[in-house]
């Protein structure tokens, strides 16, 4: 459904640039959830903003790459064509619903506003559609809540409203950028459950961006791990947790606190996460990698295709390729 190929986002000028997202490629199928995982600064948010065409003016720009949806390259569409697609298209929800919602507008009006951009409805029909959307995201007393203001709702409710607004344009793809990071864990479970439900029932393709590996394990179908602006591993979720191929993925998972394990000390990755563009030559992870050798530092790293849906950006992947 969504095919992103060779996406690079850079800062600087055409003559003198630094990639903050480098040659990123992934695809998301209908009814599938792809998790984009990485620590802060790895470029995951920048990638999603680039796909949505939301990169700030005068800031980072798309140097190469396409994002294909239903035959169109959405990155290079002029703005007026982005809206006209009617149904289908990409919607996005963010981490802080309070900053995305207008505090002085009732949420019913905000949802209606989103609907009106894509459909010519008005009056009762419009209000009914708004209410249906609220019911779709399982907000209790939907008719009543249409008249509520954002500050009257809890964090979890606001996030559901955000999802409702995102669904107003009947998108094919939903990009969720850390939507539950700011929420309590019990609320988080319910939002994740809602996303799963929407994905199954509407055939939505979801790009779920997060740094929380626990959420990844429970929700997503496939995972792409990012480090220093590149995707270092793509795999099905079970594969990633059981037999990760890239040393960074493996190291990341060994850092997780697990109360069931009861050792006082956690394994850590030595050093600090590399910023995109910081490592000039060779593999970005090599300085911290437990199995790095000279060639890792000297030469650019090739992709290793380990199976039809598993690949890693490593010269010595931890998993053997399977035909």
């Amino acid at each position, binding site marked *: 459904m969504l095919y992103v190929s060779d996406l690079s986002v850079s800062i600087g000028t055409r003559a003198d640039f630094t990639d903050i997202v480098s040659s990123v490629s992934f695809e998301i199928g209908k009814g599938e959830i792809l998790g984009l995982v990485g620590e802060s600064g790895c470029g995951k948010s920048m990638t999603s903003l680039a796909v949505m065409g939301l990169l700030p003016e005068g800031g980072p720009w798309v140097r190469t790459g396409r994002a294909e949806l239903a035959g169109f390259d959405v990155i290079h569409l002029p703005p007026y064509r982005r809206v006209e697609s009617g149904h289908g298209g990409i919607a996005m929800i963010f981490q802080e619903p309070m900053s995305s919602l207008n505090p002085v507008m009732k949420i019913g009006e905000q949802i209606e506003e989103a609907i009106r951009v894509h459909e010519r409805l008005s009056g009762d029909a419009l209000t009914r559609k708004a209410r249906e959307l609220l019911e779709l995201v399982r907000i209790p007393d939907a008719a009543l809540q249409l008249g509520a203001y954002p500050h009257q709702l809890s964090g979890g409710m606001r996030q559901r409203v955000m999802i409702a607004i995102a669904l107003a344009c009947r998108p094919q793809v939903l990009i969720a950028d850390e939507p539950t990071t700011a929420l309590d864990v*019990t609320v988080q479970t319910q939002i994740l459950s809602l996303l799963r439900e929407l994905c199954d029932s509407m055939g939505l393709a979801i790009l779920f961006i997060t740094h929380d590996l626990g959420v990844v*394990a429970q929700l997503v179908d496939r995972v792409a791990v990012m480090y220093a602006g590149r995707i270092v591993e793509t795999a099905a979720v079970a594969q990633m947790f059981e037999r990760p191929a890239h040393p960074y993925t493996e190291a990341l998972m060994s850092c*997780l*606190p697990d*109360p069931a394990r009861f050792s006082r000390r*956690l394994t850590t*990755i030595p050093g*600090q*996460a590399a910023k995109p563009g910081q490592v000039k030559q060779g593999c970005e992870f090599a300085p911290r990698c437990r199995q790095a050798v000279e060639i890792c530092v000297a030469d650019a790293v090739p992709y290793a295709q380990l199976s039809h849906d598993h690949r890693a950006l490593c010269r010595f992947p931890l998993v053997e390729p399977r035909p």
Partner: protein
Amino acid sequence: MSGQPILDVQGLSTDYTVRRQGKTIQVHAVKDVSFTLAKGEVLGIVGESGCGKTTVGRSIVRLAKPHRGEVLFAGTNIFAAAPDELRKLRLRIRMVFQDPFASLDPRRSIGDSIAEAGDIHGLFKGGVDRQGEIEKALNNVGLDGSYAARFPHELSGGQRQRIGIARAILPAPGIVIADEPVSALDVSVQAQVLNLLADLQEMMGLSMVFISHDLGVVGQISDRVAVMYMGRIVETAATRDIVDRPIHPYTITLMAARPRPDPKIRIKPGIEIGEPPSQFDRPAGCPYAKRCAIATSLCATDDPSLRMVASGRMVACHNV
């Protein structure tokens, strides 16, 4: 080692009044919280937002004043202490703050920030002594002495948090209250800082209260855990017991809701477990009754208090 706990919190309660839609309501941010901390022990306090855990932590360092209750540090009531004693107490009870980007003054050098407690109380015997102490503190948190001359904006989140820790251990305190010290950090950095805290705690014999919303993190470092909900402690037990056999219905929900990095456990669609009631809508009786799977009519009217159900385990519930 004497049997007296280093920290003894008794009946801590903080209320505040709000006006909502014309009515004046009393909100119990913290209600009747009591616990003890033995010397050298790490107690984890875990709960979701609004449960009052941060208020409890701030009360212990006297950044918040409770309406009722006592906090005894090595037998001394910190709220009734004379000004001289209070000054000494401030050095013995220290806090590590959550936000590494806000907890350091951007205009002051790292060295100045670390040495602040000592400077305020005039503890250093001259510049050389001060430099030496700063360098020792930096080394203790795994950083090199050259960091003393740098400024916060030059450091990453993890490094700043280490500075926050260095600040809290110079001079060596008796208790450290850590308020969500790793919540703002990446996974790999979290692991490093947690290890650091565990190392320091062991090395310096510190007693620690570790506040967090993340059960995994709390479980990693704590000897005992107290679970809070809507201002009350609902369960306390040794970490192992809480993790293996949680008793209070809320603790069970919390444990279950925590996303575990195990792809075999998948989120099912259609989960509804309700939300914590708003701060202003506090029902009579047990605060968890509305969401509780085993609530009875007694729960709606009677607020249960903590009682001991096994050795070292306390639960506030009518039905267990």
